């Protein structure tokens, strides 16, 4: 059973941190508040009998995504931002209030209240069976096809992110061997801008250059 005291405490945390995340002018604080909000939502998943989803929420939504967001905030140098004019904010708040009133009216119209007296936790094994089960193994058709589509989507997103962030004519050397186009010995994982083969041949090998000049090249 979901305890009302904890429900209202966690709800307060979720809503207040979410409001801070969408209204703060300091983008870094907003990203960390967003992580806190997602963490609180993960607690609600545990209360709802979904421990696997709760852990997933902690790991991905409250862990990985805010870290990536913070990195991008640093890389794009947009830590403090100007907010839009008050008129737009007032219009947005008005639209929000109207939507909220409609939503509450819609909810209160459909009377009966359900109470989860005994929430049975959904184990990861049940989820996996439902997710990956086929007609041969479990007798029921699962969501294997959608699962494969999601995995392909993630692969495409990963490759797409690498391709999109790569500069024009830039190669990644060292451990990332797939993208190296010029055969040349450089230090591990070093990024270098000249990608034309002529430049690479004309430049002496990195080991042969004296330290000062090498620093200059790296800078």
């Amino acid at each position, binding site marked *: 059973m979901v305890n009302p005291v904890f429900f209202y405490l966690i709800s307060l945390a979720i809503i207040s941190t979410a409001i801070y995340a969408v209204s703060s002018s300091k983008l870094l604080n907003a990203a960390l508040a967003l992580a806190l909000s997602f963490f609180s939502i993960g607690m609600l998943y545990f209360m709802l009998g979904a421990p696997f989803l709760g852990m997933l929420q902690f790991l991905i939504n409250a862990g990985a995504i805010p870290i990536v967001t913070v990195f991008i905030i640093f890389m794009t140098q947009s830590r403090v931002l100007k907010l839009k004019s008050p008129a737009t904010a007032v219009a947005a708040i008005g*639209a929000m209030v109207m939507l909220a009133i409609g939503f509450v009216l819609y909810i209160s119209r459909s009377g009966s209240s359900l109470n989860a007296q005994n929430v049975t936790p959904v184990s990861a094994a049940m989820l996996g069976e439902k997710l990956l089960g086929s007609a041969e193994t479990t007798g029921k058709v699962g969501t294997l096809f959608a699962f494969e589509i999601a995995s392909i989507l993630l692969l495409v997103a990963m490759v797409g992110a690498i391709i999109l962030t790569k500069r024009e004519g830039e190669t990644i050397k060292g451990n990332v061997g797939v993208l190296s186009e010029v055969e040349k010995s450089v230090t591990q994982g070093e990024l270098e801008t000249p990608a034309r083969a002529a430049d690479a041949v004309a430049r002496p090998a990195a080991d042969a250059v004296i330290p000062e000049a090498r620093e200059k090249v790296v800078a």
Partner: protein
Amino acid sequence: MESILSTIRSFANNGISLQQFLILGGLLFLVGIYGVLTRRNLIAILMSVEIMLNAAMLNFVAVSAYTDTVNINGHLFALFIVAIAAAEVAVGLAIFINVFRSKGGVLTDDLMEMKQ
């Protein structure tokens, strides 16, 4: 004093209905909409979209927990939402880096070529 205590006790023992979860999810979604409408930084807009996705996820899980004891369809939808949100964040942030390189900023005002 006794009546207050009994009120608190009944409040704590009654449990939470599905509607309260739905209202929480709806409020969270509205907070996300507010962020999308008022923010002018692309990263902040993406963060607001994340809030909206999480509100939808919370609704799925709550409905799944309240309808049946063995109903896990909502959990499956939540799993797919997590995957799609991760892909969206990866590609979106890569695009923002490109925008920053070509325009010098990630504000929506920097991306106004189609308007002219």
